[in-house]
């Protein structure tokens, strides 16, 4: 039987209340949200480093925290592996000393060093190894304790952009093989989508939406989730229009957009950059939404280019950008289909 981590926390933070309940089986769940959304507090409460005002933390049949019954196990009695944001490796111990620090059985240490490819660094101090290596040491150290639950606090934020992508792919594979309840927090949706089976968007202490990364992108529940998953948001008021479509009259007189979704009143039109195509003049195809505006910026991303056109961002292949001869300041037409224009309630 799969053992489940369950927690339900309620705790007052500086400007809002943290109120989060979650069940995690043998899977990786990511909580993603802007900094200051209460992500680290959740991890600390599960690990026993922060005592919430009210809450329950259970692993299988074990109760780690139940404020109503006065149960609050100290961190050393919860079988939790916590990987800190800056890794928190002990500077006075070498890699071996760090990994062996909490080992329940010293025989697992050499095997862990090999598994995380840090065997050759056993005698190095944390200050002498790279960021990616430090992360692997921190993970090995957490696992040496043979925890029931793994918690990772912003596992990629301490890395430079260059190593980040490689480490992310590695970490994804590693976590997928782990088969234990794993909770990670990050401010980056792409990191969350790569690493986790389920992603929860956390804003001001509450999970706005929880689902697979694909679900969040396909049907974000509100404009915040949409913008967090990378969508363009255009605000306007929706009215029933011709052909059963909804017409959204954009604010500040930028024209109208059309959507197949039904809505009335003030809404946000969410459209993902990869659903937007660019052309020199309005194309005669199935896309009904066209925005004419000058190119504000061009940012190459490997084989893609992110192009800012007026109020929206389009993502096109590098070869298309070259074929169109896109240059800053030139007027182009950004087009997307009415079926790609999601209509979302604006945040209250």
């Amino acid at each position: 039987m799969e053992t489940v981590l369950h927690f339900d926390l309620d705790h007052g933070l500086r400007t809002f209340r943290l109120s989060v309940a979650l069940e995690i089986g043998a899977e990786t769940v990511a909580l993603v949200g802007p900094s200051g959304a209460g992500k680290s507090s959740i991890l600390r409460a599960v690990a026993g480093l922060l005592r919430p005002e009210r809450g329950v933390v259970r692993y299988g049949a074990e109760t780690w925290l139940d404020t109503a019954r006065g149960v609050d196990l100290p961190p050393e009695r919860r079988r939790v592996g916590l990987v800190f944001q800056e890794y928190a490796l002990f500077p006075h111990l070498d890699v071996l000393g760090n990994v062996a620090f909490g080992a329940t059985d010293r025989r697992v240490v050499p095997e862990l060093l090999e598994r995380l490819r840090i065997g050759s660094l056993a005698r190095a101090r944390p200050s002498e190894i790279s960021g990616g290596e430090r992360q692997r040491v921190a993970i090995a150290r957490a696992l040496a304790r043979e925890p029931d639950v793994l918690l990772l606090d912003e596992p990629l934020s301490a890395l430079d952009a260059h190593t980040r992508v490689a480490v992310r792919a590695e970490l994804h594979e590693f976590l997928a093989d782990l088969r234990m309840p794993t909770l990670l927090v990050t401010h980056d949706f792409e990191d969350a989508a790569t690493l986790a089976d389920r992603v929860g968007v956390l804003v001001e202490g509450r999970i706005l939406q929880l689902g697979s990364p694909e679900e969040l992108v396909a049907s974000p529940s509100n404009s915040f989730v949409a913008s967090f998953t990378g969508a363009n948001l255009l605000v306007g008021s929706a009215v029933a229009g011709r052909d059963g479509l909804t017409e959204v009259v954009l604010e500040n007189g930028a024209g109208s957009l059309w959507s197949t979704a039904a809505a009335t009143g003030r809404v946000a039109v969410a459209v993902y950059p990869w659903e937007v195509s660019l052309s020199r003049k309005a194309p005669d195809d199935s896309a009904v939404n066209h925005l004419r505006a000058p190119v504000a910026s061009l940012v190459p991303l490997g084989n893609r280019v992110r192009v800012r056109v007026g109020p929206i961002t389009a993502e096109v292949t590098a070869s298309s950008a070259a074929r169109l001869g896109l240059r800053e300041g030139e007027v182009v037409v950004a087009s997307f289909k009415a079926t790609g224009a999601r209509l979302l309630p604006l945040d209250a």
Partner: protein
Amino acid sequence: MRATPFGVGLVAATALSLGFLLLPIVAIFTELSLTELRDGLTSDVARDALRVTAETNLVAMALIIAFGTPTAYLLATRRFRGRALLVTVVELPLVLPPAVAGIGLLAAFGRLGLLGGTFETLGVEIAFTKIAVILAVTFVASPFYVRTAVAAFESVDSDLVAASRTLGAGPGRTFARVALPLASGGLGAGAALAFARGLGEFGATIMFAGSLQGVTQTLSLAVYQEFDVAFANALAIGALLVVASALVLLTAKLIPVWRRFSTSTSTTVSAPSVSR
């Protein structure tokens, strides 16, 4: 750079201050011939004083470290109401005139003092014994250690302590394996400062322990006793104290530097094995 009147003033004031501070120390050595130094240091008074100083200061340092370390850890890691007041109590001996410390110790532990009766029934006499020297030194020197130790424990990254706890180490093991080793540089520096203060202790000791040769007469007290009997002996003992104090101060300054240096050396030494 053009010499401004302000710059000239700064340099002049600094030169005057340093000259004033160094002159008495230089004078001790220039007023003393090598023979006088040797005779002074081998005199009975000096030998007895050195022995008393060593014995009492070692015990006092052991007490300061044994009780001051946990006190400092508590003050550094807990936040509670009245903490500032406790810190003030710990620091009080720093500003208390030593004579007041001496009279206070006498009022507390003297035969007619607050706890005098208690100790008398136990058959322990404190005032004017070696125990009195130890208590006087402990009283005046402890804040030098505890203050530095609180700062050293406060500078230990709280994430490291948290990491230790999540790795299964209880508060005691976390203290021994994480906080203590990481604070050790600061603790060493604090101990050296306290030791230097203890070596120079005079006022509280003479009031509470007297100046009995071979029993309570420390090096500082011997300087005072000898200066109108045998001035050269007083100078010789003074020279010894100058050297000892300078060594202790240098140790206190070098411990943090040396620790940083030793870690950076190990970096260069093991770097090749890392790249392999």
